[in-house]
């Protein structure tokens, strides 16, 4: 790997300097600030006071909405990640076949990936409006329903719609990750299996799945992190209303610190979220490193 020419010992570090500086100042530093704030007294106006130990954490755990929000976050991450992984995998299997218009299908599937989440959430927000939403219009037009349906009759239903939008925007990412894995599989493997009389399911289980597993793992772990961090969908569609019943941890955090001015518990929650992410990131790093070792 080394070019074999003489380099001074510190030269590589010089090359890394700008990048390290950028990341340290704008990522590492805010992390440290949040950690520090979470152990300090913060007034409503945001003035930082003395060290108060774990008081902020205790207060955060005592917040009335805390439990709901945590459950919501769990449901949100699980449902979106699992369903979009399954859906994305199926779509990738289909798109990997040779058929006419395949390129067009690929191009169309890029759309949700490339569009800003706020915009997509706004459009879906409009689509499912009861009074004038487009979904009701289309269904009425086609004669499938006789009367407009209220698609947001309760907060539970609204939360399900938020999950649907989450799935909608996540599926393309999974699909393209799996596709790149599928395309690297040697076709002769399938031919040999067909010669041996293996059926579709058999080939799927013993050839496709094991070989796609690395890309599937990467996409799943990345998705857990992205979905956990996702803010615009919930914020645009319900703003967590009513009373934080549709909030996930991230939107709740935002509401706490910038609307309700409870900066103390908000920073404590930030740290908790940060630790959860660290756990995911750790798993991710282990998988990536292991994959690297294998190669």
């Amino acid at each position: 790997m080394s070019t074999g020419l003489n380099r001074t010992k510190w030269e590589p570090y010089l090359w890394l300097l700008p990048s390290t500086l950028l990341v340290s100042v704008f990522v590492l530093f805010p992390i440290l600030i949040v950690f520090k704030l979470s152990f300090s007294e913060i007034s409503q106006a945001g003035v930082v006071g003395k060290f108060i130990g774990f008081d902020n954490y205790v207060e955060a755990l005592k917040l009335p909405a805390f439990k709901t929000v945590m459950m919501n976050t769990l449901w949100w991450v699980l449902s979106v990640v699992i369903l979009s992984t399954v859906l994305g995998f199926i779509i990738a299997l289909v798109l990997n076949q040779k058929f006419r218009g395949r390129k067009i299908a690929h191009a169309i599937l890029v759309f949700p990936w490339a569009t800003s989440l706020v915009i997509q959430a706004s459009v879906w927000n409009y689509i499912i409006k009861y009074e004038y939403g487009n979904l009701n219009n289309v269904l009425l037009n086609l004669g499938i329903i006789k009367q407009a349906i209220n698609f947001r009759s309760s907060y539970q239903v609204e939360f399900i719609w938020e999950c649907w939008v989450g799935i909608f925007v996540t599926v393309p990412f999974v699909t393209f990750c799996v596709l790149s894995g599928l395309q690297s599989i040697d076709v002769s493997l399938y031919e040999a299996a067909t010669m041996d009389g293996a059926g579709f399911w058999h080939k799927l289980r013993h050839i496709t799945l094991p070989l796609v597993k690395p890309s599937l793992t990467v996409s799943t772990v990345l998705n857990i992190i992205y979905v956990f961090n996702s803010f615009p969908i919930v914020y645009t569609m319900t703003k967590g209303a009513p009373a934080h019943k549709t909030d996930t941890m991230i939107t709740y955090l935002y509401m706490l610190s910038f609307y309700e001015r409870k900066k103390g518990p908000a920073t404590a929650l930030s740290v908790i979220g940060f630790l959860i992410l660290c756990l995911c990131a750790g798993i991710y790093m282990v998988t990536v490193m292991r994959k690297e070792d294998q190669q």
Partner: protein
Amino acid sequence: MKRYPEIKKQNLRMFVFLVLGLVLSLILMSLPLYSFDVGVYTKKSANTFVGDEKYAAAKAEAEAVAEEYRAQGLDVEVSEDVLERVNSKGKTTSLVTFTVSQRNSKNFWSFLGKDLPSSTALVCILGLMAFSLIFTVSGLAGSFDLMHRYLDQRSKIFRSLTIAILLIAILLIPVFILMNNFTFSRQLSLYNSNLVTEGKELFYARMDRFLFDGQMGESIGDVLSGLDIQHSNLIWLLIPTLFISLLAAFSLRKGEIQSSLLRLCLYVFVIVVCVVTLYPYYVMLITAFRTNAESLDMYFLHMFPTKWIWSNLTDIINRGVPRFLLNSLFVAGGATLLAMLCGIPAAYALARMNFKGKKIFLGYVIMSQMFSPVVLLIGISQLMTTLHLNNTLWGLMLINAAFNQAFAIWLLRGTFVSISSEMEQAALIDGCGTVGALTKVLIPMAAPGIVTALIFVFINAWNEYTVATILISTAQNRPITVGITQFSSFNMIEWQYMFAASLLATIPVVVLFMTIERHLTAGLTSGGVKG
């Protein structure tokens, strides 16, 4: 050329299926699709209670009238309506009304030559069905018992044409249904309630011809206002029946039933996925060109705007959208440039040099990718206040560059590793220096990968929303993602402006993304981990 009897048998079977599908469709088209009742006789009986003498007498009278009509061969039925109320003296009065109504029904054939918009669609469907039969016969002639690979060009074209034509016919059915539902519910009610008077006469005349063969004449307006047209959902069955024909046509083209069925399922699946994916974009497009009233209309039954309002675009230009777009361009462009300037050297060092702490650095950078700025928002806003970068585009740019650093390095390193280092070594020996080797040799060679990383970072920064909502407090500094939310306030949402601006923000990014999609997926899963 060898002829195969079993092929002949199979082709024959498929041909029968195709004809069967078409015939079934024609039968379906002859069944009643729309039905409505027209009152021909009314008998009102006051002070009558259900079950008493007056009631029985009135009922008998109505039945007698109905019988008369039935004798003429008309389909009539008697219905009763009881109206009970308590008057001012506290006494209950009751009015029973018997109505003899004639039950009319219309099937597909009634639409022919009636000048309704849907008539054209029906003619197209019928024409396509006829053509599909002609093309099948032409495609089969002379090659009935040939293996599919021996088919001549002409037969192949005819067989493909059949598939295409049947597919169009199937797609036209929902169009036909849409047009009808629109005519019978929306248009009719608008004219009946005098909300729209333009073209009323013509429309009434057409409805008269369609519903009553032009017999109502002057009184059509009154009749139409009391009319309740029921439609049967039988009409949807046309799709599966034509689908049988399509399947048969597919088998004739492909030769195998099983594989063609799978193939068809594949196409159906792909089409469904594409339609669902495009649906929000369709909504965005049509809403962007509607008037505010139309976008908030509860019973708006058009699939497209009645009039395309291009002035929505000029309106949003006056409401600051160009400024937002420029802000976004500045932030995203600057962030991309910065991310590249920092990322390329780092990726180069990671790909080409060996040093202590390489893994640690890689881990450090990748970890930074794990945190969306949201978790750190409080920290970021604090930091920005300290640096006096609050409410500036520069602050936004720096944050975006930093949070995209990981992906940039990840993608770039993968690209650099995949390029052999021999050329650079030659350049180094020629006395180029490391910087020279990088800029003159490696960067031109890695251009596709660099462009991919560049566009990816650009799009991420362009679409960023959360940090911008916190950092930017004045309207003129808003990037477009925050800018579009200004069209929605608590008491009024101007959807048409919101989506017109969204459209402007989306189109360039989607186009950019399509160009890099292929490179990106490869880079995401393998690029970063090739060692």
